[in-house]
Protein backbone atom coordinates (compact mmCIF):
# COMPACT_ATOMS: atom_id res chain seq x y z
CA UNK A 1 0.00 0.00 0.00
CA UNK A 2 1.16 3.43 -0.88
CA UNK A 3 0.30 6.88 0.53
CA UNK A 4 -0.96 9.16 -2.22
CA UNK A 5 -1.19 12.90 -2.41
CA UNK A 6 -4.92 12.50 -1.97
CA UNK A 7 -4.34 10.70 1.32
CA UNK A 8 -2.33 13.69 2.49
CA UNK A 9 -5.06 16.13 1.51
CA UNK A 10 -7.63 13.91 3.22
CA UNK A 11 -5.39 13.83 6.29
CA UNK A 12 -5.36 17.59 6.60
CA UNK A 13 -9.11 17.85 6.04
CA UNK A 14 -9.78 15.16 8.59
CA UNK A 15 -7.44 16.83 11.05
CA UNK A 16 -9.30 20.10 10.57
CA UNK A 17 -12.60 18.38 11.33
CA UNK A 18 -11.11 16.58 14.30
CA UNK A 19 -9.71 19.75 15.83
CA UNK A 20 -13.02 21.49 15.38
CA UNK A 21 -14.79 18.57 17.06
CA UNK A 22 -12.23 18.26 19.85
CA UNK A 23 -11.65 21.99 20.37
CA UNK A 24 -13.32 22.14 23.76
CA UNK A 25 -11.68 18.95 24.93
CA UNK A 26 -8.21 20.27 24.10
CA UNK A 27 -8.98 23.66 25.61
CA UNK A 28 -10.21 22.03 28.79
CA UNK A 29 -6.98 20.04 29.06
CA UNK A 30 -5.08 23.29 28.61
CA UNK A 31 -7.23 24.94 31.28
CA UNK A 32 -5.90 22.41 33.79
CA UNK A 33 -2.21 23.07 33.25
CA UNK A 34 -2.00 25.90 30.75
CA UNK A 35 -3.99 28.87 29.61
CA UNK A 36 -7.10 27.33 28.17
CA UNK A 37 -6.45 28.00 24.53
CA UNK A 38 -4.88 24.96 22.91
CA UNK A 39 -8.11 23.76 21.29
CA UNK A 40 -8.84 27.25 20.05
CA UNK A 41 -5.33 27.53 18.66
CA UNK A 42 -5.34 24.21 16.80
CA UNK A 43 -8.82 24.74 15.46
CA UNK A 44 -8.01 28.25 14.25
CA UNK A 45 -4.88 27.00 12.52
CA UNK A 46 -6.45 24.02 10.79
CA UNK A 47 -9.50 25.99 9.69
CA UNK A 48 -7.04 28.19 7.82
CA UNK A 49 -5.30 25.13 6.42
CA UNK A 50 -8.63 23.82 5.18
CA UNK A 51 -9.33 27.18 3.51
CA UNK A 52 -5.93 27.10 1.88
CA UNK A 53 -5.97 23.52 0.59
CA UNK A 54 -7.87 24.17 -2.67
CA UNK A 55 -5.16 26.60 -3.76
CA UNK A 56 -2.46 23.92 -3.48
CA UNK A 57 -4.49 21.09 -4.99
CA UNK A 58 -2.03 20.80 -7.87
CA UNK A 59 1.09 20.87 -5.71
CA UNK A 60 3.20 17.87 -4.73
CA UNK A 61 3.17 16.40 -1.22
CA UNK A 62 6.16 18.40 -0.08
CA UNK A 63 4.67 21.68 -1.14
CA UNK A 64 1.30 20.87 0.38
CA UNK A 65 3.03 20.19 3.69
CA UNK A 66 5.17 23.30 3.42
CA UNK A 67 2.13 25.46 2.71
CA UNK A 68 0.39 23.83 5.64
CA UNK A 69 3.33 24.72 7.86
CA UNK A 70 3.40 28.32 6.65
CA UNK A 71 -0.33 28.64 7.19
CA UNK A 72 -0.13 27.25 10.71
CA UNK A 73 2.76 29.59 11.46
CA UNK A 74 0.73 32.67 10.72
CA UNK A 75 -2.51 31.52 12.26
CA UNK A 76 -1.92 29.53 15.45
CA UNK A 77 0.46 31.63 17.51
CA UNK A 78 1.38 30.45 21.01
CA UNK A 79 3.83 27.63 21.54
CA UNK A 80 1.99 25.15 19.37
CA UNK A 81 2.04 27.44 16.33
CA UNK A 82 5.75 27.48 15.55
CA UNK A 83 6.10 23.87 16.72
CA UNK A 84 3.37 22.44 14.53
CA UNK A 85 4.57 24.68 11.76
CA UNK A 86 8.11 23.33 12.11
CA UNK A 87 6.71 19.83 12.02
CA UNK A 88 5.16 20.38 8.60
CA UNK A 89 7.88 22.58 7.12
CA UNK A 90 10.65 20.22 8.18
CA UNK A 91 8.53 17.20 7.35
CA UNK A 92 8.17 18.60 3.84
CA UNK A 93 11.92 18.66 3.15
CA UNK A 94 12.31 14.95 2.36
CA UNK A 95 9.13 14.65 0.35
CA UNK A 96 9.54 17.57 -2.01
CA UNK A 97 8.28 16.89 -5.53
CA UNK A 98 6.79 13.57 -4.42
CA UNK A 99 3.26 12.50 -5.36
CA UNK A 100 3.28 9.37 -3.24
CA UNK A 101 5.12 7.83 -0.28
CA UNK A 102 5.94 4.36 0.88
CA UNK A 103 6.17 3.45 4.55
CA UNK A 104 9.82 4.34 4.77
CA UNK A 105 9.29 7.72 3.16
CA UNK A 106 6.30 8.41 5.36
CA UNK A 107 8.32 7.52 8.43
CA UNK A 108 11.17 9.74 7.29
CA UNK A 109 8.77 12.61 6.79
CA UNK A 110 7.35 12.25 10.30
CA UNK A 111 10.80 11.86 11.78
CA UNK A 112 11.98 15.04 10.11
CA UNK A 113 8.88 16.74 11.43
CA UNK A 114 9.68 15.63 14.94
CA UNK A 115 13.22 16.89 14.55
CA UNK A 116 11.82 20.24 13.51
CA UNK A 117 9.77 20.39 16.70
CA UNK A 118 12.74 19.42 18.85
CA UNK A 119 15.08 21.88 17.20
CA UNK A 120 12.72 24.79 17.82
CA UNK A 121 11.35 23.79 21.19
CA UNK A 122 14.35 22.00 22.72
CA UNK A 123 12.09 19.56 24.51
CA UNK A 124 13.26 16.10 25.38
CA UNK A 125 11.29 12.95 25.74
CA UNK A 126 9.66 13.01 29.19
CA UNK A 127 9.21 16.77 29.34
CA UNK A 128 5.43 16.36 29.00
CA UNK A 129 4.93 17.84 25.56
CA UNK A 130 3.79 16.92 22.06
CA UNK A 131 7.29 15.54 21.60
CA UNK A 132 6.40 12.56 23.78
CA UNK A 133 3.62 11.49 21.44
CA UNK A 134 5.71 11.93 18.29
CA UNK A 135 8.62 9.99 19.81
CA UNK A 136 6.26 7.14 20.59
CA UNK A 137 4.97 7.16 17.03
CA UNK A 138 8.37 7.33 15.36
CA UNK A 139 9.81 4.59 17.57
CA UNK A 140 6.91 2.33 16.76
CA UNK A 141 7.12 3.01 13.04
CA UNK A 142 10.87 2.37 13.10
CA UNK A 143 10.21 -1.04 14.60
CA UNK A 144 7.62 -1.89 11.93
CA UNK A 145 9.40 -0.94 8.74
CA UNK A 146 9.02 -4.51 7.44
CA UNK A 147 5.31 -4.72 8.24
CA UNK A 148 2.44 -3.67 6.05
CA UNK A 149 1.30 -0.05 6.13
CA UNK A 150 -1.82 -1.17 7.99
CA UNK A 151 0.06 -3.04 10.69
CA UNK A 152 2.66 -0.29 11.07
CA UNK A 153 0.14 2.51 11.35
CA UNK A 154 -2.12 0.58 13.72
CA UNK A 155 0.79 -0.26 15.95
CA UNK A 156 1.92 3.35 15.88
CA UNK A 157 -1.57 4.51 16.82
CA UNK A 158 -1.57 2.22 19.83
CA UNK A 159 1.84 3.56 20.76
CA UNK A 160 0.70 7.16 20.21
CA UNK A 161 -2.17 6.62 22.59
CA UNK A 162 0.14 5.14 25.23
CA UNK A 163 2.63 7.96 24.79
CA UNK A 164 -0.10 10.57 25.13
CA UNK A 165 -1.34 8.88 28.28
CA UNK A 166 2.20 8.61 29.58
CA UNK A 167 2.29 12.38 29.93
CA UNK A 168 -0.28 12.20 32.74
CA UNK A 169 2.13 11.24 35.55
CA UNK A 170 4.91 13.45 34.19
CA UNK A 171 5.96 16.74 35.71
CA UNK A 172 6.16 19.32 32.93
CA UNK A 173 9.58 20.77 32.17
CA UNK A 174 8.73 22.73 29.07
CA UNK A 175 6.01 25.19 28.11
CA UNK A 176 3.46 26.85 30.27
CA UNK A 177 2.66 23.77 32.33
CA UNK A 178 6.19 23.77 33.74
CA UNK A 179 5.30 26.82 35.87
CA UNK A 180 3.03 24.61 37.91
CA UNK A 181 5.86 22.39 39.09
CA UNK A 182 4.40 19.36 40.81
CA UNK A 183 0.90 20.61 40.26
CA UNK A 184 1.29 19.68 36.60
CA UNK A 185 1.40 16.00 37.56
CA UNK A 186 -1.81 14.08 36.99
CA UNK A 187 -2.96 15.94 33.90
CA UNK A 188 -2.70 14.87 30.29
CA UNK A 189 -0.68 17.28 28.18
CA UNK A 190 -2.80 19.14 25.63
CA UNK A 191 -0.06 19.24 22.98
CA UNK A 192 0.60 15.52 23.36
CA UNK A 193 -3.12 15.04 22.84
CA UNK A 194 -3.36 17.17 19.72
CA UNK A 195 -0.34 15.32 18.33
CA UNK A 196 -2.21 12.07 18.88
CA UNK A 197 -5.25 13.48 17.10
CA UNK A 198 -3.12 14.64 14.21
CA UNK A 199 -1.55 11.22 13.79
CA UNK A 200 -4.86 9.41 14.14
CA UNK A 201 -6.23 11.57 11.34
CA UNK A 202 -3.27 10.54 9.21
CA UNK A 203 -3.75 6.87 9.95
CA UNK A 204 -7.48 7.05 9.30
CA UNK A 205 -7.13 8.85 5.97
CA UNK A 206 -4.63 6.29 4.73
CA UNK A 207 -6.40 3.17 5.95
CA UNK A 208 -10.08 4.02 5.61
Amino acid sequence: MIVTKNHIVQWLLKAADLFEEQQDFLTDLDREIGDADHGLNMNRGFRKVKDKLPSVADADIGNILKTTGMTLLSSIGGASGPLNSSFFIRGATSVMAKEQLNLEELTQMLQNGLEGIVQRGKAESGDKTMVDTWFGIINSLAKHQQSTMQVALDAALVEANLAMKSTIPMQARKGRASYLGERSIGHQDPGATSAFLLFSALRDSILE
Partner: protein
Amino acid sequence: MKKIINHVDNVVKELLEGVAIAHPALQVNLDPMYIVRRDKKGPKVALISGGGSGHEPMHGGFVGMGMLDGACPGQMFTSPTPDQMYECAKQADSGEGVLFLVKNYTGDILNFDIAVELLHADGIKVQASIIDDDVAVKDSLYTAGRRGVATTVLAEKILGAATEEGYSLDKISQLAKRVANRGRSIGVALSACTVPAAGKPSFELKDNEIEFGVGIHGEPGIERRTFIDGDSMTTEMVSELLDNKPYQRTVHQWDNELGQWNDDTWTSEALESGDKVIVLINNLGSTPQSELYVVYRKVAELLGKQGITIERNLIGTYCTALDMQGVSITLLKVDDEMLSLYDMPVNTPALRWGC
Protein backbone atom coordinates in the same frame (compact mmCIF):
# COMPACT_ATOMS: atom_id res chain seq x y z
CA MET B 1 -20.09 34.66 31.47
CA LYS B 2 -21.16 38.10 30.26
CA LYS B 3 -18.69 40.22 28.37
CA ILE B 4 -19.11 43.37 26.35
CA ILE B 5 -18.11 41.68 23.16
CA ASN B 6 -19.84 40.40 20.07
CA HIS B 7 -18.70 37.12 18.53
CA VAL B 8 -15.80 35.59 20.46
CA ASP B 9 -13.86 35.17 17.25
CA ASN B 10 -13.89 38.92 16.64
CA VAL B 11 -12.90 40.23 20.05
CA VAL B 12 -9.36 41.23 19.15
CA LYS B 13 -10.31 42.58 15.75
CA GLU B 14 -13.09 44.75 17.17
CA LEU B 15 -10.94 45.98 20.00
CA LEU B 16 -8.34 47.04 17.44
CA GLU B 17 -10.99 48.78 15.37
CA GLY B 18 -11.92 50.73 18.48
CA VAL B 19 -8.28 51.63 19.12
CA ALA B 20 -7.90 52.78 15.52
CA ILE B 21 -10.86 55.17 15.79
CA ALA B 22 -9.95 56.37 19.26
CA HIS B 23 -6.29 57.12 18.65
CA PRO B 24 -5.56 58.68 15.28
CA ALA B 25 -1.88 58.91 16.25
CA LEU B 26 -1.72 55.14 15.93
CA GLN B 27 -1.80 53.23 12.69
CA VAL B 28 -3.66 50.00 13.19
CA ASN B 29 -3.29 47.18 10.72
CA LEU B 30 -5.76 44.31 10.86
CA ASP B 31 -4.22 41.72 8.57
CA PRO B 32 -1.79 40.88 9.93
CA MET B 33 -2.58 42.60 13.20
CA TYR B 34 -0.18 45.24 14.43
CA ILE B 35 -0.10 48.82 15.72
CA VAL B 36 2.58 51.37 14.85
CA ARG B 37 3.10 55.07 15.45
CA ARG B 38 2.07 57.36 12.66
CA ASP B 39 4.59 60.02 13.69
CA LYS B 40 7.51 57.72 13.03
CA LYS B 41 10.66 59.72 13.47
CA GLY B 42 14.11 58.58 12.79
CA PRO B 43 16.56 57.38 12.25
CA LYS B 44 16.36 55.59 15.57
CA VAL B 45 16.10 52.04 16.82
CA ALA B 46 12.53 50.74 16.60
CA LEU B 47 11.22 49.20 19.81
CA ILE B 48 8.51 46.62 19.29
CA SER B 49 6.71 44.38 21.70
CA GLY B 50 3.78 42.08 21.48
CA GLY B 51 2.06 39.17 23.06
CA GLY B 52 -1.32 37.65 23.55
CA SER B 53 -4.24 40.03 23.90
CA GLY B 54 -6.08 40.32 27.19
CA HIS B 55 -3.32 42.27 28.95
CA GLU B 56 -4.60 45.70 27.92
CA PRO B 57 -3.43 48.41 28.07
CA MET B 58 -0.23 46.42 27.45
CA HIS B 59 1.12 46.52 24.74
CA GLY B 60 -0.98 48.54 22.29
CA GLY B 61 -1.69 51.23 24.86
CA PHE B 62 2.02 51.92 25.14
CA VAL B 63 2.68 52.71 21.50
CA GLY B 64 3.70 56.31 21.02
CA MET B 65 6.42 58.86 21.50
CA GLY B 66 8.92 57.79 24.14
CA MET B 67 7.75 54.22 24.43
CA LEU B 68 6.93 51.56 21.82
CA ASP B 69 7.17 52.05 18.09
CA GLY B 70 4.98 49.08 17.46
CA ALA B 71 2.96 46.35 19.11
CA CYS B 72 1.72 43.00 17.86
CA PRO B 73 -1.39 41.69 19.57
CA GLY B 74 -2.12 37.99 19.40
CA GLN B 75 -5.39 36.29 20.05
CA MET B 76 -6.52 36.31 23.69
CA PHE B 77 -3.63 35.01 25.79
CA THR B 78 -2.01 33.57 22.68
CA SER B 79 1.29 34.81 21.36
CA PRO B 80 1.11 36.65 18.04
CA THR B 81 2.60 35.10 14.93
CA PRO B 82 5.86 35.83 13.13
CA ASP B 83 4.18 37.45 10.12
CA GLN B 84 2.69 40.13 12.37
CA MET B 85 6.06 40.87 13.95
CA TYR B 86 7.78 40.87 10.60
CA GLU B 87 5.34 43.31 9.00
CA CYS B 88 5.27 45.51 12.07
CA ALA B 89 9.05 45.69 12.17
CA LYS B 90 9.24 46.49 8.47
CA GLN B 91 6.89 49.42 9.07
CA ALA B 92 8.67 50.67 12.16
CA ASP B 93 12.29 50.24 11.10
CA SER B 94 14.05 53.44 10.16
CA GLY B 95 17.38 51.86 9.35
CA GLU B 96 18.84 51.69 12.83
CA GLY B 97 17.49 48.24 13.53
CA VAL B 98 14.71 46.70 15.56
CA LEU B 99 14.56 45.52 19.16
CA PHE B 100 11.85 43.04 20.02
CA LEU B 101 10.96 43.09 23.70
CA VAL B 102 9.63 39.64 24.45
CA LYS B 103 7.92 38.35 27.56
CA ASN B 104 9.43 35.02 28.42
CA TYR B 105 6.88 32.42 27.36
CA THR B 106 7.62 29.53 25.06
CA GLY B 107 5.06 30.75 22.55
CA ASP B 108 6.29 34.32 22.49
CA ILE B 109 9.94 33.29 22.27
CA LEU B 110 9.37 30.84 19.44
CA ASN B 111 7.31 33.23 17.34
CA PHE B 112 9.61 36.20 17.89
CA ASP B 113 12.64 34.01 17.14
CA ILE B 114 11.21 33.18 13.76
CA ALA B 115 10.49 36.87 13.12
CA VAL B 116 14.11 37.68 13.97
CA GLU B 117 15.29 35.12 11.45
CA LEU B 118 12.95 36.47 8.77
CA LEU B 119 14.08 40.08 9.32
CA HIS B 120 17.72 39.07 9.31
CA ALA B 121 17.14 37.41 5.96
CA ASP B 122 15.90 40.81 4.76
CA GLY B 123 19.09 42.47 5.93
CA ILE B 124 17.53 44.27 8.89
CA LYS B 125 19.55 44.54 12.11
CA VAL B 126 17.47 42.95 14.80
CA GLN B 127 17.62 41.71 18.38
CA ALA B 128 15.14 40.03 20.71
CA SER B 129 15.44 40.67 24.41
CA ILE B 130 13.42 38.92 27.06
CA ILE B 131 11.75 40.07 30.23
CA ASP B 132 11.46 37.25 32.77
CA ASP B 133 10.66 38.90 36.06
CA ASP B 134 8.11 36.67 37.77
CA VAL B 135 9.88 35.42 40.88
CA ALA B 136 7.12 32.91 41.53
CA VAL B 137 8.91 30.59 39.14
CA LYS B 138 11.91 29.30 41.04
CA ASP B 139 14.22 27.46 38.71
CA SER B 140 15.01 27.79 35.05
CA LEU B 141 16.47 24.36 34.58
CA TYR B 142 13.29 22.35 34.93
CA THR B 143 10.83 24.95 33.72
CA ALA B 144 10.41 27.28 30.79
CA GLY B 145 11.95 29.89 33.07
CA ARG B 146 10.46 32.87 34.80
CA ARG B 147 7.46 34.42 33.12
CA GLY B 148 7.55 37.92 31.78
CA VAL B 149 5.02 40.12 33.54
CA ALA B 150 4.68 43.75 34.61
CA THR B 151 8.38 44.73 34.50
CA THR B 152 7.70 44.77 30.78
CA VAL B 153 5.78 48.04 31.20
CA LEU B 154 8.72 49.74 32.89
CA ALA B 155 11.10 48.22 30.35
CA GLU B 156 9.04 49.60 27.49
CA LYS B 157 9.11 53.05 29.08
CA ILE B 158 12.85 53.06 29.74
CA LEU B 159 13.93 51.46 26.50
CA GLY B 160 11.52 53.61 24.51
CA ALA B 161 13.12 56.71 25.96
CA ALA B 162 16.53 55.29 25.08
CA THR B 163 15.50 54.89 21.45
CA GLU B 164 14.42 58.54 21.39
CA GLU B 165 17.80 59.47 22.86
CA GLY B 166 19.50 57.82 19.93
CA TYR B 167 20.97 54.78 21.65
CA SER B 168 22.31 52.18 19.20
CA LEU B 169 20.74 48.74 18.96
CA ASP B 170 23.68 47.26 20.85
CA LYS B 171 23.49 49.81 23.62
CA ILE B 172 19.75 49.37 24.00
CA SER B 173 20.15 45.61 24.05
CA GLN B 174 22.64 45.97 26.90
CA LEU B 175 20.19 48.22 28.73
CA ALA B 176 17.38 45.74 28.11
CA LYS B 177 19.47 43.04 29.72
CA ARG B 178 20.10 45.29 32.72
CA VAL B 179 16.40 45.98 33.12
CA ALA B 180 15.64 42.27 32.83
CA ASN B 181 18.18 41.44 35.51
CA ARG B 182 16.89 44.11 37.85
CA GLY B 183 13.13 43.72 37.62
CA ARG B 184 11.18 41.37 39.85
CA SER B 185 7.45 40.82 40.13
CA ILE B 186 4.99 38.70 42.02
CA GLY B 187 1.28 38.35 41.39
CA VAL B 188 -1.66 37.15 43.42
CA ALA B 189 -5.19 36.33 42.27
CA LEU B 190 -8.25 36.59 44.47
CA SER B 191 -10.38 35.20 41.70
CA ALA B 192 -9.80 33.92 38.20
CA CYS B 193 -10.38 35.52 34.84
CA THR B 194 -12.63 34.25 32.11
CA VAL B 195 -11.22 33.91 28.60
CA PRO B 196 -14.05 34.88 26.20
CA ALA B 197 -13.75 31.78 24.05
CA ALA B 198 -13.57 29.53 27.09
CA GLY B 199 -16.62 31.05 28.69
CA LYS B 200 -15.83 30.01 32.24
CA PRO B 201 -13.32 31.04 34.90
CA SER B 202 -9.98 29.31 34.58
CA PHE B 203 -10.02 28.24 38.22
CA GLU B 204 -12.26 28.42 41.26
CA LEU B 205 -11.16 29.79 44.62
CA LYS B 206 -12.91 29.56 47.95
CA ASP B 207 -13.72 32.69 49.89
CA ASN B 208 -10.54 32.42 51.95
CA GLU B 209 -8.19 31.28 49.20
CA ILE B 210 -5.82 33.08 46.90
CA GLU B 211 -3.60 31.85 44.11
CA PHE B 212 -0.13 32.98 45.11
CA GLY B 213 2.41 33.54 42.37
CA VAL B 214 -0.10 33.72 39.59
CA GLY B 215 0.84 34.78 36.07
CA ILE B 216 -1.15 36.90 33.66
CA HIS B 217 -2.84 34.18 31.66
CA GLY B 218 -5.38 32.83 34.07
CA GLU B 219 -3.18 29.86 34.81
CA PRO B 220 -3.21 28.75 38.45
CA GLY B 221 -0.45 30.13 40.64
CA ILE B 222 2.45 28.39 42.25
CA GLU B 223 0.60 27.74 45.44
CA ARG B 224 -2.87 28.12 46.86
CA ARG B 225 -2.71 30.11 50.09
CA THR B 226 -5.09 31.34 52.74
CA PHE B 227 -6.24 34.91 52.52
CA ILE B 228 -6.07 36.77 55.80
CA ASP B 229 -6.11 40.44 54.92
CA GLY B 230 -4.52 42.96 52.58
CA ASP B 231 -1.49 43.68 54.75
CA SER B 232 -0.66 40.02 55.31
CA MET B 233 -0.96 39.29 51.63
CA THR B 234 1.23 42.25 50.73
CA THR B 235 3.79 41.19 53.31
CA GLU B 236 3.97 37.69 51.84
CA MET B 237 4.37 39.15 48.37
CA VAL B 238 7.14 41.53 49.40
CA SER B 239 9.05 38.86 51.25
CA GLU B 240 8.93 36.73 48.12
CA LEU B 241 10.28 39.69 46.17
CA LEU B 242 13.09 40.36 48.61
CA ASP B 243 14.38 36.82 48.46
CA ASN B 244 17.78 37.38 46.88
CA LYS B 245 18.78 33.98 45.63
CA PRO B 246 20.49 34.84 42.34
CA TYR B 247 18.49 33.65 39.38
CA GLN B 248 20.57 32.41 36.52
CA ARG B 249 19.39 31.32 33.09
CA THR B 250 20.54 30.77 29.57
CA VAL B 251 19.11 33.14 27.01
CA HIS B 252 19.90 33.20 23.36
CA GLN B 253 20.74 36.41 21.55
CA TRP B 254 20.85 36.94 17.84
CA ASP B 255 24.24 37.40 16.27
CA ASN B 256 23.67 39.87 13.45
CA GLU B 257 27.10 39.17 11.94
CA LEU B 258 26.91 35.41 11.79
CA GLY B 259 23.15 35.18 11.51
CA GLN B 260 22.75 32.71 14.34
CA TRP B 261 21.60 32.39 17.92
CA ASN B 262 24.28 32.46 20.60
CA ASP B 263 23.68 31.37 24.15
CA ASP B 264 24.37 33.84 26.92
CA THR B 265 24.06 33.45 30.69
CA TRP B 266 22.10 36.10 32.53
CA THR B 267 22.05 36.49 36.29
CA SER B 268 19.57 38.59 38.22
CA GLU B 269 20.98 41.34 40.44
CA ALA B 270 20.45 41.37 44.19
CA LEU B 271 18.21 43.98 45.79
CA GLU B 272 19.70 45.40 48.94
CA SER B 273 19.60 48.14 51.49
CA GLY B 274 20.62 51.40 49.84
CA ASP B 275 19.16 50.43 46.49
CA LYS B 276 16.71 52.63 44.62
CA VAL B 277 13.62 51.22 42.96
CA ILE B 278 10.62 52.04 40.87
CA VAL B 279 7.55 50.37 42.36
CA LEU B 280 4.68 49.31 40.15
CA ILE B 281 1.46 48.27 41.87
CA ASN B 282 -0.50 46.72 39.07
CA ASN B 283 -4.16 45.85 38.88
CA LEU B 284 -4.45 42.42 37.27
CA GLY B 285 -7.95 43.24 36.09
CA SER B 286 -10.86 43.90 38.37
CA THR B 287 -9.24 45.25 41.51
CA PRO B 288 -10.50 48.69 42.56
CA GLN B 289 -7.92 51.47 42.52
CA SER B 290 -8.54 51.99 46.24
CA GLU B 291 -7.18 48.55 47.04
CA LEU B 292 -4.01 49.22 45.06
CA TYR B 293 -3.28 52.09 47.43
CA VAL B 294 -3.80 49.83 50.42
CA VAL B 295 -1.13 47.57 48.91
CA TYR B 296 1.21 50.45 48.15
CA ARG B 297 0.91 51.73 51.70
CA LYS B 298 2.24 48.44 53.03
CA VAL B 299 4.88 48.02 50.33
CA ALA B 300 6.28 51.46 51.13
CA GLU B 301 6.44 50.60 54.81
CA LEU B 302 8.18 47.27 54.20
CA LEU B 303 10.70 48.61 51.70
CA GLY B 304 11.43 51.50 54.05
CA LYS B 305 12.33 49.00 56.75
CA GLN B 306 14.74 47.32 54.34
CA GLY B 307 16.47 50.59 53.53
CA ILE B 308 15.25 50.50 49.94
CA THR B 309 14.29 53.88 48.51
CA ILE B 310 11.23 54.22 46.29
CA GLU B 311 12.22 56.71 43.62
CA ARG B 312 9.03 56.51 41.57
CA ASN B 313 5.74 54.70 41.76
CA LEU B 314 3.12 53.69 39.27
CA ILE B 315 -0.19 52.54 40.72
CA GLY B 316 -2.89 51.46 38.36
CA THR B 317 -3.97 49.21 35.54
CA TYR B 318 -1.06 48.43 33.24
CA CYS B 319 -0.57 44.71 32.67
CA THR B 320 -3.75 42.74 33.14
CA ALA B 321 -5.19 39.29 32.78
CA LEU B 322 -8.62 40.25 31.47
CA ASP B 323 -10.95 40.49 34.46
CA MET B 324 -8.81 38.67 37.00
CA GLN B 325 -9.19 40.02 40.51
CA GLY B 326 -5.74 40.48 41.91
CA VAL B 327 -2.63 42.55 42.01
CA SER B 328 1.01 42.31 41.11
CA ILE B 329 3.92 44.13 42.68
CA THR B 330 6.98 44.96 40.62
CA LEU B 331 10.27 46.29 41.95
CA LEU B 332 12.73 47.57 39.42
CA LYS B 333 16.13 48.47 40.78
CA VAL B 334 17.28 51.60 39.01
CA ASP B 335 20.40 53.66 38.53
CA ASP B 336 20.55 57.28 37.47
CA GLU B 337 20.55 56.49 33.78
CA MET B 338 17.47 54.29 34.03
CA LEU B 339 15.73 56.84 36.21
CA SER B 340 16.35 59.72 33.89
CA LEU B 341 15.13 57.66 30.93
CA TYR B 342 12.05 56.74 32.94
CA ASP B 343 11.36 60.42 33.60
CA MET B 344 11.59 61.45 29.98
CA PRO B 345 8.41 62.52 28.18
CA VAL B 346 6.04 59.84 27.01
CA ASN B 347 2.85 60.17 25.02
CA THR B 348 0.84 57.01 24.59
CA PRO B 349 -2.82 56.19 25.17
CA ALA B 350 -2.11 54.59 28.55
CA LEU B 351 0.97 56.39 29.85
CA ARG B 352 1.66 60.03 29.43
CA TRP B 353 3.77 62.66 31.07
CA GLY B 354 6.15 65.47 30.29
CA CYS B 355 4.23 66.50 27.19
